[in-house]
């Protein structure tokens, strides 16, 4: 079956939708733009599912391993015979999987936004931005050329900037979008340098050729790049680490994570799309795409692993103290992506020599990371959309204003519970399977990472259930609300979570368009755990069997259950145990609450150092020297012109005098000086 006939439509349809809605949405379509956006996305989703079905089940496999197909390739910019930027579409297991993920989650978000953003004035603009983002993300995942990925990378950054700053009249939103864009842009600097090094050394920008040249032991390019060293580190390590820095920025890894919590200023469906399921996994996707090259270079793999692990742990700790539900989810995202990253880091790589029964040797970490990406997309977007529904009703982001919403929003409550169980890793929900595989890969490769992952999963369970109980339970029995209340009953208190009454409850749970995606995603969360992922996705395309070792799984599940129990004790009912615990932990609690002061450090660096040392002198030079020169030239010209002005006096006789003078000069020149 010919892929090229329809595969290009998948990203291009959202692009067309962006153009149409962007140009005409405000005037002509208004409410219709939502429907248009949803229809376009539905088409793209169906096409992706069809392509996935085709690839995985029909003809993707040749000789038992999944091939990398390139249905479309178009030379865009050619530097020399061998080096050119092509625009192409690559189909291999992870890109097809990502196509499905991106389109499906985007579709859910589109449908949800029909209800959530209803009545919004810039409805059409919102949908056009969503389409732009979807197009960029799809282009990113099917990029066949490393420069193409960079182009789409930047496009994704721009779309996220537009979406985060959607409420542009809020200064906090504007600041957040700027922060996101600048931080990721700064990381992309590293990415670009990495690309240039890789491209230059391997003399190609095409992914396939690049990977092939840099992994073949006998290739001259690999020899060249591995032996050249700069500051004692080989060039290959530099290149890969720089590329990883770019990915770390986009995926909010420590220390480039500061933009992710602030990015919650955008509308909640946007957070669901961008910061749960798609953009933040772009970094993981990049590492996975270049995984064969990473695997050869041990040093860069170590960087990946440790950055991922540290991020996971740090984020989990911070999430325990946050009261804004979206920020809790943001840190949870960061933590889970940390899982994906270090799973890649501890992964093996298949190759011809590995035994088929050794899962880890076959690349279990790689598969587990991708599997976790897949499941995480489901339950994290579900969490965000539920949070959106809650915020829609309560009109506040803060946990203090919520509590006891269980009876009011039954569907949301159940969906949230399912997602929390999944993320905590309780069987038989989706997160259990993917987390187990990650932990198994870590255990085989690097036990220290395994312990970090274990503790983090306990903390994850704790804070997720803290969130769940605080929103939906945590009410003294006599004040469980089943009917809507007037808006201003009891003033909120400022101490522990969940003491105040909900602020404004004059809506019902939400329209059908808001409930439907929740249901679909919840069902997905229940089911996707059972997909035998390793049959489809592995580093070298050869499917392998990954078994579930039940004895191994006991420990993580136990720890997760303990975490849930602790959360239950603290938050199920309204009590003062949380404050006592916070007081007992004292300084640690404060530090975690303040996100370990990382933001302050960044602010300090930028304000004191960069602004004062670099920015201010540069501005001074620009104002005084550059502008001063221009002004000086203008002023001089003005003075000269004032002086010369007198020549045009209008007096004929002066003219005649000058005329005569000129003639005399000419005569002298011609007579005496002309040789």
């Amino acid at each position, binding site marked *: 079956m010919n892929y090229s006939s329809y595969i290009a439509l998948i990203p291009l349809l959202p692009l067309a939708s962006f153009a149409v809605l962007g140009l005409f949405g405000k005037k002509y379509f208004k409410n219709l733009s939502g429907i248009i956006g949803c229809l376009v996305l539905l088409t793209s989703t169906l096409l992706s599912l069809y392509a996935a079905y085709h690839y995985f089940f029909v003809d993707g496999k040749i000789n038992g391993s999944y091939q990398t197909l390139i249905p479309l390739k178009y030379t865009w910019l050619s530097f020399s015979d061998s080096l050119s930027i092509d625009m192409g579409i690559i189909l291999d297991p992870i890109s097809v999987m990502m196509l499905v993920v991106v389109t499906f989650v985007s579709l859910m978000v589109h449908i949800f936004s029909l209800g959530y953003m209803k009545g919004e004035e810039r409805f059409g603009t919102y949908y056009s931005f969503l389409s732009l983002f979807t197009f960029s993300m799809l282009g990113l995942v099917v990029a066949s050329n490393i420069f193409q990925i960079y182009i789409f990378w930047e496009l994704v950054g721009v779309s996220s900037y537009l979406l985060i700053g959607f409420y542009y009249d809020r200064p906090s939103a504007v600041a957040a979008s700027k922060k996101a864009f600048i931080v990721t842009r700064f990381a992309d600097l590293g990415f670009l340098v990495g690309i240039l090094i890789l491209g230059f050394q391997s003399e190609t920008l095409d992914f396939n050729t690049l990977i092939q040249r840099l992994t073949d032991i006998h290739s001259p390019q690999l020899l060249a790049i591995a032996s050249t060293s700069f500051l004692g580190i080989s060039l290959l390590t530099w290149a890969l680490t720089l590329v990883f820095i770019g990915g770390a920025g986009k995926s909010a890894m420590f220390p480039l994570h500061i933009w992710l919590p602030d990015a919650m200023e955008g509308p909640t469906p946007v957070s669901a799309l961008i910061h749960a399921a798609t953009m933040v996994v772009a970094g993981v996707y990049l590492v996975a795409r270049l995984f064969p090259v990473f695997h050869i270079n041990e040093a860069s793999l170590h960087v990946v692993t440790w950055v991922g692990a540290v991020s996971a742990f740090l984020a989990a700790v911070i999430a325990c103290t946050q009261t804004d539900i979206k920020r809790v989810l943001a840190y949870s995202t960061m933590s889970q992506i940390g899982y994906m990253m270090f799973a890649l880091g501890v992964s093996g790589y298949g190759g011809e020599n590995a035994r088929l029964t050794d899962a880890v040797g076959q690349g279990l970490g790689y598969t587990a990371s991708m599997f976790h990406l897949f499941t995480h997309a489901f339950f994290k977007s579900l969490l965000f959309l539920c949070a959106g529904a809650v915020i829609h009703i309560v009109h506040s982001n803060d946990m203090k204003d919520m509590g006891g919403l269980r009876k009011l929003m039954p569907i949301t409550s159940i969906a949230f519970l399912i997602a929390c169980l999944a993320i905590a890793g309780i069987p038989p929900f989706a997160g259990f399977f993917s987390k187990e595989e990650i932990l198994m890969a870590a255990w085989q490769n690097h036990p220290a990472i395994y312990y970090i992952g274990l503790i983090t999963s306990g903390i994850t369970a704790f804070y997720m259930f803290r969130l769940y109980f605080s929103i939906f339970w945590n009410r003294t029995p006599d004040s469980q609300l089943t009917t809507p209340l007037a808006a201003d009953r009891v003033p909120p208190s400022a101490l522990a979570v969940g003491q105040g009454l909900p602020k404004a409850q004059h809506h019902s749970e939400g329209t059908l368009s808001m409930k439907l995606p929740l249901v679909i995603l919840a069902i997905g969360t229940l089911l996707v755990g059972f997909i035998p992922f390793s049959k489809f996705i592995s580093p070298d395309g050869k499917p392998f069997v990954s078994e579930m070792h039940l004895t191994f799984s006991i420990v993580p599940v136990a720890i997760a259950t303990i975490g849930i129990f602790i959360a239950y004790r603290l938050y199920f009912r309204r009590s003062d145990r949380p404050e006592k615990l916070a007081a007992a932990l004292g300084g640690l609690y404060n530090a975690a609450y303040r996100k370990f002061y990382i933001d302050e450090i960044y602010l300090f660096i930028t304000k004191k150092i960069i602004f004062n040392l670099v920015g201010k002198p540069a501005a001074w030079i620009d104002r005084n020297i550059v502008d001063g020169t221009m002004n000086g030239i203008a002023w001089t010209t003005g003075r000269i012109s004032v002086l010369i002005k007198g020549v045009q006096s209008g007096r004929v*006789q002066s003219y005649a*005098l000058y005329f*005569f*003078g000129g003639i*005399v000069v000419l*005569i*002298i020149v011609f*007579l005496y000086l002309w040789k």
Partner: protein
Amino acid sequence: MTTRKIFRSAIWLLFSLIGIAALYFWLQVEFIAAVQIIVYVGGIVVLIIFSIFLTQQSGNEMPKQPLKRTITSALAVLFGFGLTFLQIWKYNFQPSTKNFDWSVSKIGSQMLGTKAAGYALPFEVVSMLLLAAMIGCIVIAMKAPGSATSGKAKEEKLETIKEASEIEITINEITGT
């Protein structure tokens, strides 16, 4: 050139022109002298005097130039004069010893001749030029009817026409001869 009263300077001009005519006589080009007197003295000086009267400033004194201007011009002129005279003094003019026969008949025939040294074409061109000048003067000096100075304009028109016709007459005299 330096008197402040304008009428006086007109008279000085008259004397200068007569002096030049005398110079022509001395150079044995009597014809030119005659032409000079008739056209210049009789026509142009009269024209100038007329216009002096028309602009009603004959009796008044003219305002003085700023001193800077006077000195600058004097210097420039003296410098130019010196330069030119230096050239003249240095140059070795070789006077020819050929014979000099400038009778009026010869002048006339040559002017209207069409052969090598004939000047018939310039003659015609100059006639056209005079015609154009005449018409131009009339147009420039013409005023819309019904204005205060139209009387003066008419006088001026008459004057220019008279001037041009005198020239015509002179030329006709030449051709007649």
